[in-house]
């Protein structure tokens, strides 16, 4: 057993591995930076950094081959390398406390990045002045929703992520008295009015019967959004209820009746509901006097929890976010002639880790250099004492 683990251990604690991994990460960052021209920031992050391997898609096939270690592999190996070296090389003595602490801080920093990659979620909340929002929306992810509006107090929502819609399969859910079949799906599309001589639409109900959805290539540009569209058939045990065109580009609600209830079908930006609400009381856009140069954006927000325990005001402005219920609300933008605010909503349970890691690394370096400084002073004192004791000529 030992004969197997010894080379493994030597491999993981070696400094060569550290150097090799650092070089690999340099190459990864370099290539990923160049590839941003083609893919844009989000796709590059997913392809190079939030992945185990960088995959290369074989042309004209559906086969992808791993061609380079991704961020998770390099970061993970670095983490193992650092931890192993930490345990193996460094002596547990007071004199080495500084180095131990600095390395532990670095390990924590790497772990923090991993946790952020796994858990952190960024959404946005757009609120018109005077309006109240219970939910935030995803920047890019969409969902197909079927909403039962029959209860006057609340809506029953079944939300199907776009990734599932993309499979173009039949979907059943215990909360739905019918099945939903995705007949066609386009990750990006252009919606147009159907010309008089056009072929019949796959949609048989709703506005979709009058529209054509033209597939477009997926865009990766940071300032462009894909507009997905799908033709979705709703089937009850008695037969088809119709096929609808759904897309976040269609704002008008499309509804149908089934089982004495009114259902709405829509595709929209993925929502995250919260047990509290935010009301925009006032948005302010201050400019430097006599110019259009923005000086400050701020949103006066009223926060109310559903259980009635919290009802307070908060002012959100640049670099002063609202932290509430494990979420951070940053002032991100504005809209509608300064009468609507856009808040970025960040859920990152590990947000404190980089701060703790930096404090640990800072303290470690201070202790380490403090010891060296102490040694230096002691040596100088000893030298001075020796020089003083030497006979002068």
């Amino acid at each position, binding site marked *: 057993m030992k004969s197997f683990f010894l080379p493994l*251990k030597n491999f993981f604690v070696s400094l060569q591995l550290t150097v090799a991994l650092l070089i690999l990460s340099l190459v990864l960052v370099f290539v990923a930076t160049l590839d941003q021209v083609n893919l844009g920031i989000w796709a590059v992050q997913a392809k190079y950094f939030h992945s185990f391997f960088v995959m290369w898609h074989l042309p004209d096939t559906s086969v992808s081959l791993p061609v380079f270690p991704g961020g998770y592999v390099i970061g993970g190996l670095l983490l193992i390398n650092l931890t192993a070296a930490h345990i193996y090389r460094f002596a547990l003595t007071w004199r080495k406390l500084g180095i131990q602490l600095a390395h532990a801080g670095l390990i924590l920093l790497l772990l923090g990045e991993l946790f952020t990659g796994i858990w952190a979620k960024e959404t946005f909340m757009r609120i*018109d002045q005077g309006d109240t929002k219970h939910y935030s929306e995803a920047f890019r992810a969409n969902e197909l929703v079927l909403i039962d509006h029959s209860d006057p107090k609340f809506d029953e*929502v079944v939300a199907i992520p776009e990734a599932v819609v993309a499979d173009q399969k039949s979907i059943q859910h215990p909360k739905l008295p019918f099945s939903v079949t995705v007949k066609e799906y386009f990750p990006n599309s252009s919606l147009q009015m159907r010309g008089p001589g056009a072929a019949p639409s796959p949609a048989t109900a709703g506005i979709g019967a009058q529209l054509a959805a033209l597939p477009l290539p997926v865009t990766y540009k940071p300032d462009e959004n894909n507009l997905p569209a799908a033709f979705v058939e709703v089937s009850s045990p008695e037969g088809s209820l119709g096929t609808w065109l759904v897309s976040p580009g269609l704002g008008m609600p499309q509804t149908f009746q089934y089982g004495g209830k009114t259902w709405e079908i829509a595709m929209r930006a993925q929502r995250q509901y919260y047990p509290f609400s935010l009301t925009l009381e006032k948005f302010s856009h201050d400019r430097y006097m006599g110019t259009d140069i923005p000086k400050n954006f701020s949103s006066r927000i009223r926060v109310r929890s559903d259980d009635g325990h919290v009802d307070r005001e908060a002012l959100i402005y640049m670099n002063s976010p609202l932290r509430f219920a494990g979420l951070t609300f940053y002032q991100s933008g504005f*809209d509608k002639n*300064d009468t609507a605010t856009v808040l970025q909503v960040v859920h990152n349970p590990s947000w404190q880790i980089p701060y703790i890691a930096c404090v640990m690394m800072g303290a470690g370096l201070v202790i380490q250099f403090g010891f060296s400084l102490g040694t230096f002073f002691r040596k100088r004192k000893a030298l001075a004492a020796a020089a003083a004791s030497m006979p002068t000529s």
Partner: protein
Amino acid sequence: MLPFPGVEHVLTHMLSPRRYSTLTLVASVLLAAGCRDREIVSYRAPKDPAPAAMPAAGSGMSGKLPDGHPPIGQSTNPGPVDTTQLPEGHPPIGQAAGAGGMGAMPGGDALPTAAGSALVWAAPADWQAKPAGMIRKGSYNVPGDNGAVADLSITAFPGDTGGLFANVNRWRGQIGLPPIAESALDANIERLDANGFNMVVVDATGTNNGQPTRLLGAIVPFQGQTWFFKLVGPAPVVAKQQAAFRTFLTTVKAR
């Protein structure tokens, strides 16, 4: 040789098969994180407020669409559109002040255009006025070199016609450009204040039938209506007439 034999024990222990369960746990956390994006969820949600009434032009011209309707009809071919089947309250789709095809509507069901001719303007001498048709308030052939001609159309519709964002993307679609994100709106427009109007000027170059085509347009909210001044045609012609178009915009006045 290790400085502490105990450390080697710790390391060996860490890598022992029993500890693989820890690795399995980490792997399943990662996998679970990956599968989170595919989970179908059901929940109770508070009701959305009823869609707001469409704001009057002039007050709501800064980009956000009314809850009524986002951009559709970014057609590269703004051909005749039968809007008679649209549901009640549905904003007009593809009501392009189009270079072609919008001079007259099929059948008798004209798109509701803004009543009257509330704005006046002075066109440069070399622009040739042509019949305006049922939709247009004004229509000109704008000449370039070697007989090339661009089309200038002036149209007006009640309300904000879906909002600035939708209209900018509609225009982009007419010259084969992809829609922009709402966040990129401000970078793609220019605000021009002239004669008390808050005009929004759009300048975009795309293609039409494979030819480089440029669209220079102004959206002008006026008394609850939205006026569109659109110059579209071969890119060299529009480039040549760009300065004239801007001067032309400054001549737009209320009657």
